């Protein structure tokens, strides 16, 4: 049977100016509709990241604890009853699965804040660049 291959790639770059004291959570998604009548294989799923957060108070300190954005891919059936998740990095094909009409590639990373109820906040400098991709086959 013929196999159709799809690529889903998402690049997200964020830059926060000096006055900011709150960097919200990063949550970006790219999605693609699939043929639920065909078997789906996730052939590859990966991401990489550059950048981070700096705390600027009386001194300057790097403020981060993860080297990579959390990346997953969800397969969603046409009625959205239940998702099947795959987590990056993976360079081996998944088992073939039928009945999924949507693939959602998602990158996530926690936010940070220095604001605390009425107190003067310290500044954060943030710059993050995340690239993720998934290769999906349908047969």
């Amino acid at each position, binding site marked *: 049977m013929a196999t159709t291959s799809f*690529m889903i790639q*998402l690049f997200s*770059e964020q830059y926060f*100016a000096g006055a900011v*004291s709150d960097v919200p959570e990063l949550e970006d*998604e790219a999605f693609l509709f699939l043929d639920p009548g065909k078997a789906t294989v996730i052939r590859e799923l990966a991401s990489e990241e550059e950048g981070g957060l700096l705390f600027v108070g009386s001194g300057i300190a790097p403020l981060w604890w993860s080297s990579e954005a959390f990346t997953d891919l969800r397969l969603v059936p046409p009625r959205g009853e239940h998702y099947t998740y795959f987590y990056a990095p993976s360079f081996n094909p998944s088992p073939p699965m039928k009945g999924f009409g*949507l693939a959602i590639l998602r990158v996530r990373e926690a936010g940070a*804040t220095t604001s605390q109820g009425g107190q003067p906040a310290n500044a954060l400098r943030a710059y993050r660049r995340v690239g993720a991709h998934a290769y999906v086959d349908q047969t």
Partner: protein
Amino acid sequence: MSTKPDTAADAAIFEVRVHGPGALTFGLFDAKGKALVVKRLIVSGPEGIEARSRLPRRVQTQSGAVPVVPVLIHRANSEQRVTFEGKDAAKATDERCRDIGLSKVALGKIRETTNLIAARGGDPGVLVAVSREPPTKKR
């Protein structure tokens, strides 16, 4: 099938939706026309690919939370459709500018910044400043 957030606790968040592949840059500007957040998304894949990003309606700064205006700064693929909160990006920006009451000076500054970034093909050209805010001069 839905890709909407699972909870309704996101009234403080606005959603950017992208239909089709391509690169786009958008920013969040305060009432003075200063860019507090600049974000670039690049989506690659088949024509049917879509993407979603979420950003705050108010940005927390050292001097408190400030309302912001989302502005589509650059779009590499003119076929790509971009919406803010389900509305055409330009229309949503106009509405938000009216809500916040941006001055002509602020609009001029926004235009200046967007022209600068657009001239670089949407690349915000990040330089992370690690110095503290300069002290105010005493008179």
